């Protein structure tokens, strides 16, 4: 990579062409990244030209440049949102002080841990999704999958930039390790368990991008409040790209529902067997997928009481969602928050210090946001005149982290015995049969403007292109 034009090859606004230290670190890392992309990136995509959005600057005109490119040649860039010289820390013990342009020694280990944990999820999801291109329900969807993949790659670059720039030798080693761990690898797995699960089919992919990428949104929003200004500015820009990922999830599930209700009306039936015979995904199965992805994702916010969360907040490393819009003192020393627990076979609320419950605060904000999309999916069902309502399961359902871990709670919030759980879990979570059925629908459709039988077309194309535009060109 030596002798290259950095601004051209790696679009950036971090003065890369003048920063020899950063150049040297990236020269070492970039070939390993390309090797990782070749080995673990989208399968069978090497010769495809994909209509992708590339960010070449952070202003509204520059961050969304569209054109057909080979993904291997995608210009992964390094961008920070524009800075504010006057920006002050606006929460925690350092409130009112100037934000940090370098990493304070006392917060080095925690900041590195936060950045590595966030960074690890980015390549993990590319690995989880690498086989999906082989079963894309349309060329439009194939393009959207690849857009997500390259942007997760760019988010990895964003975190690697911070590690290289601000964490010296430790940072370089951590950046290397981000390419060495692999999703689902028994010996060297990804850090968070949800990122070691398979994404076996497109309904799972849409659920993942709706629910799990939304966790990404909330984590990035909390980090965008950080007193460490380069982290705040980096994550702020990442959020713009993350929005597309959630769009793919929300519209993907919505289109799946649309097709199902259309067939329900054509056949005048809600009989699952008849709908499956017609090749669409019945609404109860969609509900079970929601239950699974919602519950697995809310675990990602961590334990409901966490001294780490309190430390991260008080020291200014990580704020709350929309910290600046909240009307409290932003220090939270005397505040309390209600969390859930199971006592004597019943769900109860416990009041605990808010600082220790900040994971729960973020989880609750996430839940509110997630429910909005479920309401919009219900409007599709309503409009079709069908009486069925999708719901988010209870917060205590199917939890494996925190004080609710291992409790047997139904989707409507009833504590049950292990026996009842075992007897009914097939009504609440996708069964092997459900997954096998959904898997059986996954055949590749890539003729422009054509869609698999189980999903409706989108209402509009990407970047004002037609729905039947050739989003992917095969060589």
């Amino acid at each position, binding site marked *: 990579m030596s002798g290259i034009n950095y601004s051209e090859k790696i679009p950036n606004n971090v003065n890369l062409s003048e920063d020899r230290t950063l150049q040297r670190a990236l020269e070492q890392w970039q070939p390993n990244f390309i090797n990782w992309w070749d080995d673990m990136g989208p399968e069978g995509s090497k010769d495809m030209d994909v209509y992708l959005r590339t960010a070449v600057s952070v202003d*509204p*005109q520059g*961050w*969304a440049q569209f054109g057909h490119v080979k993904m291997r040649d995608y210009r992964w860039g390094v961008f920070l949102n524009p800075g504010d010289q006057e920006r002050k820390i606006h929460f925690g013990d350092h409130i009112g002080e100037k934000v940090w342009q370098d990493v304070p020694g006392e917060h080095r280990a925690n900041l590195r841990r936060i950045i590595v944990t966030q960074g690890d999820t980015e390549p993990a999801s590319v690995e989880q999704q690498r086989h999906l291109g082989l079963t894309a329900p349309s060329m439009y969807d194939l393009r959207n999958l690849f857009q997500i993949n390259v942007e997760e790659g760019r988010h990895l670059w964003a975190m690697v930039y911070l590690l290289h720039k601000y964490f010296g030798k430790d940072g370089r080693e951590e950046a290397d390790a981000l390419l060495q761990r692999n999703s689902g690898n028994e010996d060297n797995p990804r850090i968070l368990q949800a990122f070691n699960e398979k994404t076996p089919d497109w309904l799972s992919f849409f659920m993942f991008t709706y629910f799990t990428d939304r966790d990404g*949104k909330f984590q990035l929003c909390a980090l965008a409040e950080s007193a460490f200004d380069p982290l705040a500015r980096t994550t*702020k820009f990442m*959020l*713009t790209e*993350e*929005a*597309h990922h*959630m*769009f793919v999830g*929300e*519209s993907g599930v919505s289109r799946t529902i649309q097709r199902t209700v259309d067939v329900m009306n054509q056949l005048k039936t809600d009989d699952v067997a008849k709908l499956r015979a017609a090749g669409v995904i019945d609404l109860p199965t969609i509900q079970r997928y929601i239950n699974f992805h919602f519950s697995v994702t809310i675990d990602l916010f961590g334990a409901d009481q966490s001294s780490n969360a309190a430390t991260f907040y008080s020291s200014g490393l990580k704020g709350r969602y929309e910290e600046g819009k909240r009307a409290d003192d932003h220090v939270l020393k005397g505040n309390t928050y209600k969390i859930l627990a199971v006592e004597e076979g019943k769900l109860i609320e416990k009041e605990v210090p808010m600082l220790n419950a900040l994971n729960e605060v973020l989880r609750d904000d996430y839940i*509110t*946001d997630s429910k*909005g*999309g479920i309401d919009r999916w219900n*409007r599709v069902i309503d409009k079709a005149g069908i009486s069925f309502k999708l719901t988010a399961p209870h917060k205590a359902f199917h939890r494996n982290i925190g004080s609710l871990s291992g409790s047997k709670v139904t989707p409507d919030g009833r504590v049950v015995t292990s026996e009842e759980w075992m007897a009914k879990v097939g009504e609440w979570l996708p069964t092997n049969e459900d997954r096998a059925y959904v898997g059986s629908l996954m055949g590749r459709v890539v003729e422009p403007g054509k869609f698999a039988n189980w999903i409706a077309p989108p*209402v*509009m194309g990407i970047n*004002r292109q037609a729905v039947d535009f050739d989003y992917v060109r095969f060589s």
Partner: protein
Amino acid sequence: MTTEAVLIQQHLIDPEICIRCNTCEATCPVGAITHDSRNYVVDADKCNLCMACVPPCPTGSIDNWRSMPKAKAYSIEEQLTWDDLPVALSEGELQAMGVDASAASVSINSTAPATDSITSSGRCCF
């Protein structure tokens, strides 16, 4: 020209397509976009039609426009209740409200999209 007679191109967000990602609100340089738990909406009094919010929108829902008499522009409160966009007013309806749609004078600023750059479906085509 009276206030009633001023025609504007009101910038609206399609609630049926919008995913509430907040990108537009974060991008808007004049703070014209706001939201509640239901909808993202544009304040016609603040929006200067600079278009900064259009490319970053992942869904295309941001790119909707309605010819409206300025005094009858849809309020934020009204937009927050919508499940879908209102039908565009016909020339006859606009004339009945005291504005000449064919005159197409846009009163907000010089960078605003001209009326003739907006299709009959209410989507901008530039």
